């Protein structure tokens, strides 16, 4: 059953890794070489993933056995338990993720050739990109929680390097640090979860012919144990792992790093926030889903299973994030920050989907979102590129006349994100989530939050579109250039935005096509995708499906209408004008703009506490340990003094005597060798004579 592709799944991450290693060795001028290397390896990985996908398609189905390939990695203790086995798994989940990541990744690579064209650290950038892609693919194919964790950390590292790519900008460096540390917080819990899981099940392999940690025996073993508060061990571990996911995919408490991460180059934002890194969290939950969903009655075979605690946590966190990130996004002015917050909220949706509807729902939104969010980010990048690195949407406007291709593709992305009914993938995926949330047995609040979030999404996307693409260009506050003198024309050239090069627009167009096309594979009418992921009970267009569709369509129209009302008609003349939303009651707008002051909150609590702890440690170090050390040192000093005294008055005297004699003898000897070669030679000759004489008379016979 082990086919070639399953055995050699490792090739997929290996290719970009190789590219990273090679281009790390390339000297700076070899720009083309490194770009070719990265893109070539990535597209190679894409082809392989397509092969894998086809393979997965062949033996997919409701009861498709997971295909995996395990091998013993290292022997840390004697016996069979002491063998640490790694491996990779190929199931629909992996296949879909592989294709998505490699495809979007390839497009982003190509795009960044254009975007980074003027950067002198071109090769370094591609090295990091390839490393990132390799790590991400490693996460995707891992069949072992440890392997997954390693790749996970690698992703963290790569994202750190990429966000801080322009490390000379202090803000970028700070953002990189922030991202790294924040995600670390989540990873600590993740690691705890791993350790606990290993303690419980004795294996970290997901699937291992029945003794994997995600398989029946282990699960039942875990779910039967209960820890504090009657929480099942499985649920507890699930929550720990989920915290890791929170950190990575910027869910509510740990989302702070994500908007700041916009300091990185835009392709990086696209890669990290759209396609891969943040999706990693969702993917992690999806991968370990059995751990989450398992419950005692569920094991007992009770079909109307109660929802496990872990899933509830997932859902609530998702719902909160979905709503509240959307509210923040409303009031942002940085084009990329808006997208970042919307990413947060979309991830929240995915979490809701996972929590309420199962793997398929969440994953479907993940995939669609990956495409249109990558599209949006790259479009934003193209806009920024065109407006001479201007990121403030208030300073833009009327761009659509300057860069039509970007405008159209961006519009498609916006439609998808804000859920334009029936034609765009985003609509269907979000709709599925809402539907799942609506039919959730625990509570309906997530549903309402989701709907509100959808409304806000439509609203702020409309706002962004209006500010960026409509109206007139506000980039230069100076009067428009009328006279036609050449230098003024040149000035015009320089200040007016311009369309991006082909290498940047073509990926946009491709992505736009995919964005529209994907909507065909997940509709309730023909839920091929959900069936493929194999955990779906579709009932076609039933009454409440239609009802949900109506609702979300309505919500969309409302949002767009409001947006147009606020920003479409009242065109802002200058960049400095106040935002119409600021007229909202009780200073909500300021709250939004301040992101609920969560950063400040952390500043006040966590970081201050941290600093305080550090100071305490310093104090301890200085006075307690320092004191001990000082005492020890004094004792040592005393000994040293004693030694010295002994040396001085006992040993040295004796030595001096001896040395004098030796030196006198030496000076006597040195008379013989005053450095004249010929004298030595003479001695040699004499010695020869003596020797021969001795031979003749003495030893001769």
């Amino acid at each position: 059953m082990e086919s070639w592709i399953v055995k050699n799944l490792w090739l997929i991450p290996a290719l970009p890794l190789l590219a990273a290693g090679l281009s790390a060795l390339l000297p700076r001028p070899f720009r083309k070489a490194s770009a070719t290397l990265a893109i070539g390896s990535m597209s190679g990985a894409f082809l392989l993933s397509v092969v894998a996908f086809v393979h997965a398609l062949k033996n997919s189905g409701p009861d498709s056995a997971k295909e995996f390939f395990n091998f013993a990695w290292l022997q840390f203790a004697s016996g069979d338990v002491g063998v640490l086995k790694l491996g990779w798994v190929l199931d629909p989940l992996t296949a879909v993720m592989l294709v998505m990541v490699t495809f979007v990744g390839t497009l982003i690579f190509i795009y960044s050739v254009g975007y980074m064209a003027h950067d002198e650290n071109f090769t370094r950038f591609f090295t990091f990109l390839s490393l990132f892609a390799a790590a991400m693919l490693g996460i995707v194919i891992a069949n072992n929680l440890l392997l997954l964790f390693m790749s996970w950390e690698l992703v963290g590292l790569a994202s750190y390097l990429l966000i801080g790519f322009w490390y000379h900008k202090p803000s970028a460096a700070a953002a990189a640090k922030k991202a790294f540390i924040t995600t670390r917080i989540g990873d600590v819990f993740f690691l705890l979860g791993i350790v606990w899981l290993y303690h419980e099940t004795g294996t970290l392999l997901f699937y291992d012919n029945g003794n994997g940690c995600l398989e029946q025996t282990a699960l039942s073993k875990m779910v039967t144990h209960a820890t504090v508060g009657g929480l099942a061990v499985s649920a507890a571990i699930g929550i720990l792992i989920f915290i890791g996911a929170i950190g990575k995919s910027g869910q509510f408490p740990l989302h702070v790093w994500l908007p700041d991460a916009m300091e990185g180059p835009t392709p990086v934002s696209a890669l990290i926030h759209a396609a891969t890194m943040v999706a990693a969290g969702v993917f992690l939950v999806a991968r370990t889903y059995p751990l989450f969903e398992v419950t005692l009655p569920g094991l007992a075979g009770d079909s109307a299973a109660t929802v496990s605690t872990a899933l509830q946590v997932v859902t609530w966190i998702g719902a909160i994030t979905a709503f509240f990130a959307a509210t923040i996004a409303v009031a942002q002015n940085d084009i990329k920050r808006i997208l970042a917050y919307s990413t947060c909220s979309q991830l929240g949706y995915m979490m809701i989907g996972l929590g309420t509807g199962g793997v398929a729902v969440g994953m479907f939104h993940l995939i669609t979102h990956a495409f249109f969010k990558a599209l949006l980010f790259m479009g934003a990048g193209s806009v920024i590129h065109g407006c001479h690195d201007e990121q403030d949407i208030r300073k833009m406007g009327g761009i659509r006349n300057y860069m039509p291709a970007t405008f159209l593709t961006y519009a498609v992305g916006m439609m998808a994100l804000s859920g334009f009914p029936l034609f765009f993938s985003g609509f269907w995926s979000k709709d599925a989530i809402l539907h799942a949330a609506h039919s959730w047995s625990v509570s309906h609040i997530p549903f309402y939050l989701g709907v509100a979030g959808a409304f806000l999404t439509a609203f702020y996307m409309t706002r962004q579109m209006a500010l960026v693409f409509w109206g007139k260009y506000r980039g230069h506050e100076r009067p428009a250039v009328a006279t036609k003198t050449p230098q003024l024309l040149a000035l015009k050239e320089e200040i007016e935005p311009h369309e991006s090069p082909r290498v940047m627009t073509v990926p946009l167009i491709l992505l736009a096509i995919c964005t529209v096309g994907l909507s065909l594979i997940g509709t309730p009418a023909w839920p091929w995708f959900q069936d493929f992921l194999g955990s779906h009970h579709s009932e076609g267009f039933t009454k409440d499906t239609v009802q949900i569709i109506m609702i979300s369509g309505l919500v969309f129209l409302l949002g767009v209408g409001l947006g147009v009302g606020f920003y479409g008609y009242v065109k802002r003349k200058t960049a400095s004008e106040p935002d119409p939303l600021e007229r909202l009651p009780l200073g909500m707008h300021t709250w939004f703009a301040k992101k609920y002051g969560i950063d400040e909150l952390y500043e006040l609590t966590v970081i201050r506490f941290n600093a305080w702890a550090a100071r305490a440690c310093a104090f301890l170090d200085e006075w307690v340990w320092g004191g001990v050390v000082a005492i020890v040192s004094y004792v040592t000093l005393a000994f040293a003094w004693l030694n010295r005294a002994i040396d001085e008055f006992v040993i040295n005297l004796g030595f001096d005597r001896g040395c004098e004699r030796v030196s006198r003898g030496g000076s006597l000897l040195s008379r013989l060798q005053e450095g004249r070669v010929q004298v030595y030679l003479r001695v040699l000759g004499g010695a020869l004579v003596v020797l021969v004489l001795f031979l003749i008379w003495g030893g001769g016979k």
Partner: protein
Amino acid sequence: MLNQMTLSFAIIAILIIAGATAAMTFRNLVHCALAVAVAFAGLAFAYLQLNAQFVGLAQILVYVGAVAILIVFAVLLTRGGEAAEKKVFSASWIWGGAIAVAVFGVLAWAIQHSFASQREPLPEAGASVKQIGTALMTKYVLPLEVIGLLLTAALIGAVIIAMREEDKSK
């Protein structure tokens, strides 16, 4: 034929001794170099006469062709070429001469009284280049490699030693 042998031997011996003595006594260094070249050539003839054709020619190639030239270059590079120095012999040359004479004395005495030198010469014994080549490539291949290494090292070393060191002024 023997008298011819001895005749040529005498000529060669005189050539060698004269060359060597001249090389050791002339005041002008270049003359010394030329004289020693003569001595080397004489030695080469001696080898030829001893049927050591290859060695003899190698002797000329290496000593007359290379070493003598080297010496000449060194002489000119150390400004020894122009005028003869005032003091040619070192202060205590008596000692040196005495020791040299003593060495010759004992060696000659030993040669005269050693049984080895009483042996009569064998009939023709020679070595063709082919034999030498095979010997070098089979039995003596390791020494050959070592010599190659040594020569390379000597080449590089000589270049580096004689290279003009950057003046410390800068």
